[in-house]
């Protein structure tokens, strides 16, 4: 018999799992008693990884492992509750990410629980893929490999793996070699191949660490180190640390045609034409004139002269080359030479501390050559694992069509994609969080990967599959004595015991099995003759990457940090360009290149040259699952697909732009107005002004105004009328709100500081909040009204502003007019941008509280503004009265499995945090300051007998300062968010709240917020006059 393990998530999820566990226990027990033995599948509701005595229902286990979402190899701590992974967090001891984690890393859980994952092996029968058994699938694979081997065709077989570091590539090559197959291609469409090659040649390290703190000037030539270029988390940690110094922080200049997130974090933007960066670098190096460079770049000569002077004067600079052009390699080489000449190597650019993430990576050229071979009928068998070259290559490569010429294609991918759907046999791999593995992110340090839970579906780790295949071949069996891949790994680090000892941190000294990657192909695509008025920048999406994140609703619903677009593909253009062709935001335009065309709504973006267009890659999948269908596929536009190093040239395509017969789509964005209208929400101050003691906005104290200082309990800014007896200020009975009350409930004032000098706007906090607080995504096309919906398609709910992000990243342009009216001035193209994370401010004097008719929102003695879901009747008055607009309403039953709007289709709901209620329709919700974490810490302190009673008879909760933090603060790769008790001097937040840059948003409304922002610090050019 089959036991149904589906878990319904109704009102509360905290008890559900236990209840279901008992239910299933009862059912299976009864079934066993009745039937005796059963022939069907028996699934386990609590898949034990560790011996049962370690799994206490309702108490989390934590497993250290390695993130596989990109090549970086960050360390993870995965929280597992009742046998299910529920949260991915950064490993604080890991050398790469030091406890932080980006949005993509956190979304690994939605890959693990992706509802579109293959649930068992599949094989092709006719046009359809049908489920099969592992025995059958393995037999088929062994037979085919044996065939290849016996015919001596091995050298012509191709294996394309998603690039990963660690021992697996070498292990895989070993098995492949046994069948006479050439080493696999380790493809990563996100790898900046040209830069890697140039760095290797110049520094002797493909990805040197950059010490931004040591620099006084950072210049990025299109190197989007905060957008996902390279290793996003360590780069952001280093950058934010440097900028957080305030005094002595480096000034940052960004050179590039489009201001990416990295560009928006720069103090100055030089909008050089695509392809002109090299001329600018040469001008700095003294190999060309500034005037010629300015001419090539299409910007004022003063800008270039200023840049040249600044780099030459800089004490220590960090010059970084990215760029999407065909000369990316030359640019990187020139920049490396310049770094050497300026003496930066060893100071800011540290090859000795480099990252090994991209060792042995293959680029676009390899895929093209492979497609050519496939087209020529030379490839008898193709094996792919996780890589998706049918999607992530230029249309000129014709990878998908070439696959049809391959007689037998095998995929090891665990989620469907354009490549896998064309395969004949699918042997779904475990997800990274179910697998054994390792990575060597920095030299000499192994980051281990261990399963965090039993497999969700009937999948097998590819390494084990290969092992089984090898063992099935009599000539190879002797070489593989280990039982499984875990055994192989254990043998590599000196035995099982060593492995066990290393697992608590998943870090161990050592190095991964080395692999001789196949030599890069020398073949280069001949640049086609192109015409077109505009240069098209197809950029890797900061949220979806090359498209691999597209079927994760968290990432689809995470607004792009720059454009704030979600669930949609737009054509970005400068307002001047939009005026020229007569379109406004949302009107459809067609971009045509030599490779293809794409029709999508226009979006004006002021951070783009008028002669360039930009489209984000990653959306518009045809076969990658239900969520991935949103948007359009920009890969199909790439005409000049390769740079001279064989990497994807994403920004070298010429395009024409035309209005598409006046049709319009609603822009799916979370942005209302992109300007502050002088309201001082995200404040910034120029460094000289700060040093001169100017405060800028805020901090007006009027006579008679209540103190905004953080104090415990009733003396907190809540003021005396919080809960006094009938509001009498000096009332004797204030209950728990009295700091002297025996419960000690009013001892603390939970608060948060956010340092805008560090915040880059990356939005990792947003996804952390979704993961921690069971926030539903609402943008899927089926999550709207059922009858006569007036808005349809992906993002329909978002066009009505119904996204649920408890924390959002506001991105404000500091411009004096609407973005659509901005004119491009090559002499003064610059504008400031301020980011600010906005969440419930937990006001001491909260406007939402008095208006709720049923006390569903009220003030807790510890300063929290509490929302009681069970009590809420949904009048929404609280949201109306909230100046910060941080309250979110359940317009539909997103938490109800029986509705089309259900946000957690099986098994996505396995991820739900049992400590947090899944909200029902018709109620309000908002940031709770992770109250479940506060409670957990208090309970832990009590259990560890730290709580006590003071001399005055008041209970002391016994929390250690900074003992825990909120999900957003924990994930933040900028370390900008600090949470804690502002009433206790021993907590860091209390110190930060007194910083000279501290301010409250809308202080004039007397809300006495618990969130303190620290002004961003701008670093103007040394000679420029001081402007805030």
């Amino acid at each position: 018999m089959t036991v149904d393990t589906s878990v319904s998530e109704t009102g509360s999820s905290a008890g559900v799992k236990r209840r279901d566990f008992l239910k299933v226990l009862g059912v299976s027990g009864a079934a066993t008693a009745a039937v005796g033995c059963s022939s069907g599948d028996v699934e386990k509701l609590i898949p034990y990884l560790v011996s049962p005595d370690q799994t206490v229902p309702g108490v989390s286990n934590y497993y250290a492992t390695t993130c596989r979402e990109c090549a970086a190899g960050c360390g993870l701590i995965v929280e597992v509750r009742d046998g299910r992974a529920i949260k991915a967090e950064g490993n604080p001891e890991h050398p790469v990410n030091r406890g932080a984690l980006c949005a993509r890393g956190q979304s690994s859980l939605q890959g693990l629980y992706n509802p579109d994952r293959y649930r068992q092996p599949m094989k092709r029968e006719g046009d359809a893929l049908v489920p099969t058994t592992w025995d059958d699938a393995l037999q088929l694979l062994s037979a085919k490999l044996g065939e290849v081997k016996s015919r001596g065709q091995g050298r012509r077989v191709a294996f394309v793996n998603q690039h990963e570091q660690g021992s697996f590539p070498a292990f895989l090559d070993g098995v492949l070699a046994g069948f006479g197959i050439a080493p696999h291609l380790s493809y990563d469409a996100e790898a900046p191949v040209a830069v890697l090659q140039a760095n290797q040649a110049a520094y002797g390290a493909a990805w040197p660490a950059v010490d931004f703190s040591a620099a006084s000037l950072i210049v990025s030539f299109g190197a989007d180190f905060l957008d996902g270029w390279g290793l996003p988390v360590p780069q952001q940690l280093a950058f934010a640390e440097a900028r957080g110094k305030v005094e002595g922080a480096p000034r940052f200049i960004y050179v590039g045609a489009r201001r990416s997130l990295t560009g928006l974090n720069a103090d100055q933007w030089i909008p050089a034409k695509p392809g002109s960066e090299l001329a600018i670098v040469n001008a700095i190096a003294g190999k060309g004139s500034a005037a010629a460079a300015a001419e090539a770049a299409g910007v004022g000569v003063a800008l270039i002269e200023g840049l040249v002077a600044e780099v030459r004067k800089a004490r220590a600079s960090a010059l970084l080359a990215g760029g999407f052009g065909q000369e990316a390699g030359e640019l990187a080489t020139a920049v490396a030479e310049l770094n050497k000449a300026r003496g930066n190597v060893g100071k800011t650019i540290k090859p000795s501390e480099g990252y090994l993430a991209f060792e042995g990576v293959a680029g676009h050229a390899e895929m093209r050559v492979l497609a050519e071979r496939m087209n020529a009928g030379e490839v008898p068998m193709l094996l792919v694992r996780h890589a998706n070259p049918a999607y992530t290559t230029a249309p000129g490569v014709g990878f998908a069509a070439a696959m049809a010429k391959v007689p037998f294609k095998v995929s090891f991918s665990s989620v469907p994609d354009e490549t896998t759907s064309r395969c004949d046999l699918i042997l779904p791999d475990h997800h990274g969080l179910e697998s054994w593995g390792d990575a060597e992110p920095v030299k000499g340090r192994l980051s281990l990967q261990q399963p965090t839970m039993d497999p969700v579906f009937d999948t097998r780790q590819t390494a084990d599959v290969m092992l089984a295949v090898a063992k099935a071949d009599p000539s190879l069996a002797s070489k593989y004595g280990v039982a499984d891949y875990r055994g192989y790994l254990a043998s590599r680090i000196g035995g099982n015991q060593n492995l066990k000892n290393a697992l608590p941190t998943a870090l161990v000294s050592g190095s991964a099995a080395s692999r001789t990657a196949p030599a890069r192909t020398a073949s280069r695509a001949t640049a086609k003759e192109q015409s077109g008025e505009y240069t098209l920048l197809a950029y890797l999406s900061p949220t979806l990457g090359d498209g691999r994140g597209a079927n994760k609703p968290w990432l689809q619903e995470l607004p792009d940090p720059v454009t704030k677009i979600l669930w949609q593909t737009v054509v970005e253009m400068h307002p001047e360009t939009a005026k020229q062709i007569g379109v406004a935001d949302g009107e459809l335009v067609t971009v045509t290149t030599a490779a293809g065309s794409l029709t999508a709504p226009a979006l004006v973006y002021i951070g783009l040259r008028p002669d360039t267009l930009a489209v984000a890659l990653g959306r518009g999948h045809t076969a990658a699952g239900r969520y991935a269908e949103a948007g359009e596929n920009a890969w199909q536009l790439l005409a000049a697909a390769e740079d001279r190093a064989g990497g994807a040239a994403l920004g070298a395509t010429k395009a024409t732009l035309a209005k598409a017969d006046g049709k319009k789509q609603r822009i799916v964005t979370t942005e209302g107005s992109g300007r502050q209208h002088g309201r001082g929400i995200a404040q910034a101050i120029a460094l000289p002004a700060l040093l001169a003691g100017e405060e800028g906005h805020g901090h007006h104290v009027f006579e008679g105004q209540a103190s905004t200082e953080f104090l415990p309990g009733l003396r907190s800014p809540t003021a005396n009328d919080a809960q006094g007896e009938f509001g009498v200020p000096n009332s004797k009975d204030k209950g728990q709100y009295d700091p002297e009350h025996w419960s000690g409930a009013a001892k603390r004032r939970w608060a948060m500081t956010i340092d805008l000098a560090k915040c880059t706007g990356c939005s990792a906090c947003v996804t952390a909040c979704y993961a921690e607080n069971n926030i539903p995504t609402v943008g899927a096309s089926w999550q709207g009204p059922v009858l006569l919906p007036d808005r349809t398609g992906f993002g329909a709910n978002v066009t009505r502003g119904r996204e649920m992000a408890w924390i959002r990243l506001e991105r404000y342009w500091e411009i004096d007019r609407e973005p659509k009216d901005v004119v491009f001035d090559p002499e003064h193209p610059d504008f400031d941008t301020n980011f600010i994370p906005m969440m419930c401010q937990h006001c001491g004097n909260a406007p939402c509280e008095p208006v709720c008719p049923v006390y569903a929102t009220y003030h807790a003695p510890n300063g929290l503004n509490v929302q009681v879901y069970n009590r809420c009747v949904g009048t929404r008055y609280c949201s109306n009265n909230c100046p910060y607009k941080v309250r979110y309403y359940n317009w539909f039953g997103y938490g109800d499995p029986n509705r089309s709007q259900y946000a957690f289709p099986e098994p996505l709901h396995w991820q739900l945090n049992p400590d947090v209620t899944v909200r029902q329709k018709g109620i309000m919700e908002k940031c709770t300051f992770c109250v479940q974490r506060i409670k957990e810490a208090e309970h832990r302190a009590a259990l560890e007998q730290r709580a006590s009673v003071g001399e005055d008879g008041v209970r002391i909760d016994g929390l250690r300062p900074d003992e825990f933090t909120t999900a957003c603060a924990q994930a933040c790769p900028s370390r900008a968010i600090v949470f804690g008790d502002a009433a206790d001097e021993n907590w860091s937040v209390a110190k930060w709240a007194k910083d000279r840059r501290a301010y409250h948003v809308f202080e004039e409304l007397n809300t006495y917020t618990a969130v303190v922002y620290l002004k961003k610090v701008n670093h103007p050019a040394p000679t420029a006059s001081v402007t805030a």
Partner: protein
Amino acid sequence: MATLAHPDDLRRPNIASADIQLPAVTSYEQVDNEILAILKPTKAWFASLMLAIACLGLGAFGWIYQIHQGLGVAGYNPPVMWGVYIITFVFWVGIGHAGTLISAILYLFRAGFRTTIYRAAEAMTVFAVMTAGLFPIIHIGRPWKFFWLIPYPNWRLIWPNFKSPLVWDVFAITTYLTISTTFLFVGLIPDIAVLRDRETNPIRRKILGFLSFGWRNTEREWRHFARAYLFLAAFSTPLVLSVHSVVSFDFAMGIVPGWHTTIFPPYFVAGAIFSGFAMVWTIIIPMRRWFGLRHYVTLNHLDASAKMVLFTSLVVGLAYMIEFFIAWYGGVKYEQDYFWNRVFGQWWWAAWIMLTCNMILPLSLFSQKLRRNPTWLWILSIFINIGMWFERFVIVVPSLSHDVEPWQWSSYMPTWVDYALLIGSFGWFFMWFLLFVKQLPVMALAEIKEIIPPKMKHTHSHGGH
């Protein structure tokens, strides 16, 4: 008394005083016969009732669908968390004001022109408040928990938050509904007795007898009746002012730009009377024509009420201007931005519908000719109804869509569900009203009889009835 050629062709006495005359109405029998003749159902009435019920059915379907699916089926666009339902709520509460004003305040002021219209206006009040009262329930996310807003003893000792204007609303609306229903009913007692006396069906006769409290038309009864009526009029008078003041607190107590202003209570009360009179016209003008009541509701009556409308229109217009002035004078940036956006920005069309209908068109009533033109008054009443609905739209939607946090600025577009419930509310209102006009006299028989000259003075010099 001479019969006039046309009932509309009248002298123009000052009927704002109690000195009112209905020259074409000469005898008590005529009053009874003409007004009670209305009670006979007609095909047109059945058709109208069916139409009203069809509209109500549409609204009911929309509401059931909304309860099942969630409020997302309506056009809400956060931060515009209140929309058509709250607008319609305030609209109907406003409508509900004219009835009590006419029957109570004008009674106390002895304004004669109320006599023939007050019954219809009072019934309109009760039904309008019944309609309005539904909308807060329609509007909330979990309507089945509505009773949590009502303070009732419970073992959890959880009470509503008495600081919340929404709780005040509960009190204001229920009080108003209770008082206005009582007032309507008490006024009806002598008239029900007339119906009872003419009723032949024994069951109906019994019911009517019960409803008339066994009225026997004695001196003592009349004395008590007059005192009770006066008392209720005095009791209702403050409610006219307080209910809409409380409703205005829903907005004025918020700190939303465009809401947070002390002018709201008087402004809302004036607006409510304004809209209430417009709705009275919308109902009375066709009624006097279709039911042949032009000699009861004469041009003099319309003229007098038109002056009332003109006055309240000027008050409302002044309030609009003061809002702009204070926004400028107060120097609060949020308010200034908001008012600019309201009138010249995103919501210019709604604001100008409001200003045109409520401030500009009613100025035509300075012309006596137009004041005495029922067709124009009816057309104007429709404009005012639309204008007053848009006044609430302009208060609710633009304020929320343009709050202090620019990142969350948004727009608002109702869906078919919003419209279905709006139409349904009219269906509900008119269903009750249509049922009323065929069950109970739509004009106060007893009060009309009071103002027509007693027969005995003219026909019989000796003896009486």
